[in-house]
């Protein structure tokens, strides 16, 4: 059993390494494009709402904490507490997505979708290209991240169901632990995304 547990954990870490690389590419691409369009990126980031971004950061940090507590309770066979912490985590994640939804629809409204949909600046405006590239990265990165949060919500719900059934206890709580790891990485990525996108310059 211990061997199995170790193996799963190793597997999870490897998977998370691939996740970090996945985002890593976008970070590198963002950095290089910022080098090409420094002024444009600065201008574009003013469209992002720092307050909402900061709020979401806090929400995710808090959810990371509740996730730690969920794992901790599971490892001590405290089923009730685990259930509560998981529910709070899920609610935080949903709150995050709701805020994101409002941010997105605001941007779509302003014509900030990248590429052919970018209408905020006339295509003849010299700043338009760089702005559009910025939003290309913005939507790619936050979209991919949002997808990870969404996937996290689904997995957390499954976990909740199994916890309610009483599947986990001090002797076996591997899945809780693994989901915990995943959740921390997703949060961590946001911790990097937030200053990168919202707080340039």
């Amino acid at each position, binding site marked *: 059993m211990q061997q199995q547990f*170790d193996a799963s954990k190793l*597997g999870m870490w*490897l998977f998370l390494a691939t996740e970090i690389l996945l985002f890593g590419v976008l970070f590198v691409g963002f950095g290089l*494009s910022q080098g090409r369009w420094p002024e444009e990126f600065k201008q574009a980031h003013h469209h992002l709402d720092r307050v909402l971004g900061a709020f979401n950061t806090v929400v995710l940090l808090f959810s990371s904490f509740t996730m730690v507590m969920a794992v901790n309770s599971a490892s001590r066979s405290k089923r009730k507490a685990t259930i509560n912490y998981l529910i709070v985590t899920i609610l935080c994640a949903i709150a995050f997505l709701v805020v994101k939804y409002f941010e997105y629809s605001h941007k779509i409204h302003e014509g900030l979708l*990248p590429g*052919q949909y970018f209408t905020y600046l006339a295509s003849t405006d010299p700043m338009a*290209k760089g702005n559009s590239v910025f939003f290309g990265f913005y939507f*790619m990165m936050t979209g991919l991240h949002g997808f990870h949060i969404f996937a996290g919500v689904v997995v957390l719900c499954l976990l909740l169901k199994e916890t309610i059934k009483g599947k986990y206890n001090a002797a076996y709580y591997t899945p809780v632990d693994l989901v915990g790891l995943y959740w921390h990485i997703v949060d961590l990525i946001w911790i990097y995304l937030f200053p990168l996108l919202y707080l340039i310059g």
Partner: protein
Amino acid sequence: MADILTSPHAGADVHHGKEIDYIEAKKGIWSWMSTVDHKRLGLMYFWAVVANFIVGGIFALLVRITLLTGNHGDNYFINAETYNRFFTLHGIVMVFLVIIPSVPAALGNFVLPLMLGAKDVAFPRMNLASFWIYIVGWTMAITAICLGMVDTGWTFYTPYSSTTNGPVSLMALAAFTLGFSSIFTGINFIATVHKLRAPGMGWFDMPLFVWSIYSTSLIQVLATPVVGITLVLLTIERAWGIGVFDASKGGDPVLFQHFFWFYSHPAVYIMILPGMAIISEIIPTFSAKTMFGYKAVAYSSVAIALIGFLVWGHHMFPSGQSQLASLVFSFLTFLVAIPSGIKVFNWLATMWRGNIAMDTPMVWAVSFLLLFTIGGLTGIFLGSLSTDIHLHDTYFVVAHFHYVMMGGTITAFLGGVHYWWPKMFGRMYNEGPAKIAAYLYFIGFNVLFLSQFVMGSNGMPRRYYNYLPEFQPWHIASTVGSWIIAAGLFLALGNLLASLRKPKDAPDNPWKGTTLEWQTQSPPIEHNFHDQPVLHRAPYDYRTPVSVDREIH
């Protein structure tokens, strides 16, 4: 003696002849489709790879037939657009559907747990998932082919790929999906090697095959996500015109090349390391001699894997990347050649004063040594800056990579297939035709690709439908070579298939191998070993004789 494996409890029943093996353990299609047995999954991958190899090969033969003549009118039976699709699909099929899964997913899945003395891989269900993801990716690729094919070259360079017609997005997503299959296989193998080694098996008691596959898996896990997300970016660029790579929209096409090669260079080591893995098994076994420089070979696999991450820019010397970058990449490219050299010399030293049996697998292994050396050495021309400027994107490069990919990996793969065939299917094939096939392949291969080195250094660019008349003799030679090699390959396949019609007749250890997979019956039982095997003899230790059958008292 007989000290490889002691299984005090299960010993008794092992002697009662063969037991029901993994192939016959369960019946029905569903039992295959839902299997989590690494051996069955390995087998299914194997057949998928063989089928894809034939598809990729047919595209190659069509490419060669087109090039028999140099200046095609509009009415030629294969026109320029079709030609471009043929070589693109040839490249994509061979790379993503054949060579990357060939050794790790097909043979590795089958052999790796056996070699470690494990019951299965660490995550059997994930293994099944990887297989089905592979099938999904495969279906997407085939759909893209049927929907009118793709003409971007296997490298998908932007902005051509973001503007051309055809189901490029579907093909890119297919490659993305196949990448995920490859990542999961990699994770699985790493965890298996870390956690499921037989008791008594330290890191340096592992067969070299395992070391090499382990290094491969590291690259798969660390490099594949990069190309994955790059291809997604390409797809999004095609769909919504976000301009990450498109210069007219403010992007940078060279960035795409960096991302692509950041994966695809390490990917060439994903391709060759498993080939080297097989050679490191075949050579000691057929020389009946211990591996020379075991540790050097093991470490060189890891070194290749790690340094291999730092050389991608050597594909871009004339592309407009900075000169400093070109200098650094050129230097590192040379460094990565050294561990390969070390391996070659260690294999030779293993053969030296050995007791060499030229059975079919060994014929393939020796072919590998010669072909890979040519391929690798011509890589030095390409790594060197001023000569690469001349040779870049000519047939010299085409010949180089066929020598390493086909002459290296595919040759090794075929050697491995002949080596483990008795274990996988429990039958011995006919030696005569198998050897003839191997020789045909060797001759055909050199006729096919040596002529391409000549054309390439003479300035014949690649991906050319029309060419100058002076190149025609060499193109004809090359095409004739492709027929010889095709004959060899079909003969090899036919011979192997013919053996399946016989009753099972393979001994457990036909080649007197020392690694654990030879210590169970052929084909193995569903759970590989009756009892947890315990390692007593280091791999490739021929100090005490190895008997042909199981060494269990």
